[in-house]
């Protein structure tokens, strides 16, 4: 049944089939303002965007199931990797759209809000499926420009306006760096297609323009994934934006940066490995990864605002995922992709929890969480699960994904290798450091006395979203096979 459906799709749309999921999400982006103009009801707009993105997600799943993979116009490729990333972006969008209508900081401009979210998701899907530098650049810029506006949508808040201006200046600077890097790579190889670039580099070898281009792109996309020393915007933006938006940016926007980095640099350094300084660049990535996780974890210790603490922990998680860029093996990439998914449920769950508590009238400071276990035992238990999963306590999802990711640094090509052992060692030490500040929040929630004994009531959509994340954290931790296989296939498509 699915096969005949997929065949009829290909027959009807031809090449467009392979960008059909993105196009459907773009329709949601165009429809949302119109719907808000017609109905003036934010909930209807949210429901409609949710439904349209769900159609796209079902389409992606059917196309994955029937192995309908292919290339559209030589610019976008629907393969196991891009389809998996699309599902990740849409999962984050579902969580965000679910909780936004009932969140207290949500703007009155529902049409613009959901339109921007849908546009960002479409941009991410385009960037993850792109095969040329041009398509990647445009996809990433669609995401960036829409997110600047999304952060500023929390109106009349000085922190949000300040965060948006900082985000804009730093983001635009990173775009300029990326563009300069891309122009250098284009000048050296004379083409924009990533795989052709890899093949040409393998023959021609590296020169100064190629190295300059790589540095420009590492710096430019380093800003997008908030790697140290390009991380300074992340805490400000996550603190200033309304909390569902912070969660959305922390979980989805960063993953797009990684998808793009994987695509570009695996093509350059794995396909073109004979001609360029692969080992030197691997060490560059390894050092950035080590510094990123260490700085992220150490600075997170001293934070008193929970959103800033989660932001720095998100910087540290980016460091863990960067291990895959340093090792450049299929196994480590599988781990990185799996960690991206578990990061969505645990970090997304934590941000949704913060949003729920803000809606219930609590503050953003960690001390506001005193005695939460007495006031709302279920939510406190869920928050504890998310935080322990972020720290990597078995049997939760964070442990399983970190296990696969860190062992990817030790087992290279099926044998124990000493080369990246130190990186895995630093990552494990960092996980131990991170347990300190996560456990501090748990201690505040469970041991300290509450300031008042009022029960906390949060709207039902928050409960549903949090329950989904809790299920994800537990199921992915105990039974990771359901996703690991897909991640393995996706990683194989990159090599």
């Amino acid at each position, binding site marked *: 049944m699915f096969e005949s459906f997929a065949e009829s799709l290909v027959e009807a749309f031809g090449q467009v089939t392979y960008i059909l999921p993105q196009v459907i999400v773009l329709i949601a982006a165009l429809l949302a303002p119109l719907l808000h103009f017609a109905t003036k009801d934010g909930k209807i707009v949210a429901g409609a965007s949710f439904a349209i993105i769900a159609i796209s997600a079902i389409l992606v799943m059917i196309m994955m199931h029937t192995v309908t993979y292919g290339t559209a116009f030589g610019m976008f490729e629907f393969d196991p990797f891009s389809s998996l990333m699309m599902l990740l972006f849409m999962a984050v969008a579902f969580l965000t759209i679910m909780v936004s209508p009932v969140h207290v900081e949500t703007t009155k401009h529902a049409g613009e809000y959901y339109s921007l979210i849908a546009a960002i998701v479409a941009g991410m899907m385009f960037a993850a499926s792109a095969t040329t*530098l*041009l398509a990647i*650049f*445009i996809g990433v*810029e669609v995401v960036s*420009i829409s997110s*600047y*506006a999304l952060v*500023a949508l929390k*109106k*009349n*808040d*000085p*922190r949000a*306006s*300040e*965060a*948006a*201006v*900082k985000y*804009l*200046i730093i983001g*635009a*600077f990173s*775009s*300029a*760096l990326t*563009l*300069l890097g*891309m*122009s*250098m790579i*284009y*000048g050296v190889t*004379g*083409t*924009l297609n990533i795989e052709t670039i890899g093949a040409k580099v393998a023959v021609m070898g590296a020169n100064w323009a190629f190295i300059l281009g790589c540095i420009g792109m590492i710096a430019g996309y380093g800003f997008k994934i908030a790697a140290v020393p390009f991380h300074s915007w992340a*805490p*400000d933006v996550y*603190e*200033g934006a309304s909390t569902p938006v912070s969660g959305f940016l922390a979980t989805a926007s960063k993953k797009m940066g990684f998808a793009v980095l994987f695509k570009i640099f695996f093509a350059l350094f794995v396909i073109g490995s004979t001609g360029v300084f692969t080992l030197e660049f691997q060490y560059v990535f390894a050092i950035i990864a080590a510094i990123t996780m260490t700085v992220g974890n150490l*600075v997170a210790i*001293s*934070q008193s605002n929970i959103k800033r603490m989660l932001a720095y922990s998100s910087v540290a998680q980016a460091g863990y995922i960067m291990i895959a860029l340093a090792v450049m093996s299929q196994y480590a990439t599988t781990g990185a992709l799996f960690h991206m998914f578990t990061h969505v449920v645990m970090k997304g769950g934590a941000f949704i929890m913060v949003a729920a508590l803000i809606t219930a009238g609590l503050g953003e400071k960690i001390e506001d969480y005193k005695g939460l276990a007495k006031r709302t035992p279920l939510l406190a238990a869920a928050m504890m699960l998310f935080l322990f999963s972020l720290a990597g306590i078995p049997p939760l999802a964070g442990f399983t994904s970190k296990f696969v990711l860190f062992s990817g640094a030790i087992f290279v090509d099926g044998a124990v290798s000493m080369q990246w052992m130190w990186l895995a060692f630093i990552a494990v030490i960092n996980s131990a450091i991170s347990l300190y500040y996560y456990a501090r929040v748990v201690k505040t929630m469970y041991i300290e006395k509450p300031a008042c004994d009022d029960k906390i009531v949060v709207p039902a959509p928050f409960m549903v979203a949090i329950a989904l994340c809790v299920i994800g954290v537990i199921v992915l931790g105990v039974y990771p096979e359901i996703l690991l296989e897909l991640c393995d296939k996706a990683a194989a498509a990159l090599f």
Partner: protein
Amino acid sequence: MIDIAFFLVFSAILFGIGMFGLITSKRGVVTLMSIELMLNSANINFVAFSTYTGNADGLVFVIFTIAIAAAEVAVGIALMLNAYKIQKTTDVDKLSTMRW
């Protein structure tokens, strides 16, 4: 034909001016202008390389970049206006209530 090195040096100087303006300037609108300079210096690279290799991809890229830069600055001006309305300043140094 002019040697390609001249184009590259020109674009590098332009990029340097833009970066200098971005780092030293306090005024929000001037930082937006600096960003435009940096994007355009990359455009010059693309056009020069495209002309020398006879490959039209670079020219296509430039057209898209110009459109993106326009969108970026349009959003940027809107954000600056928003910040000015709330905090009565677009001085980037004064927009620093959040630290660490």
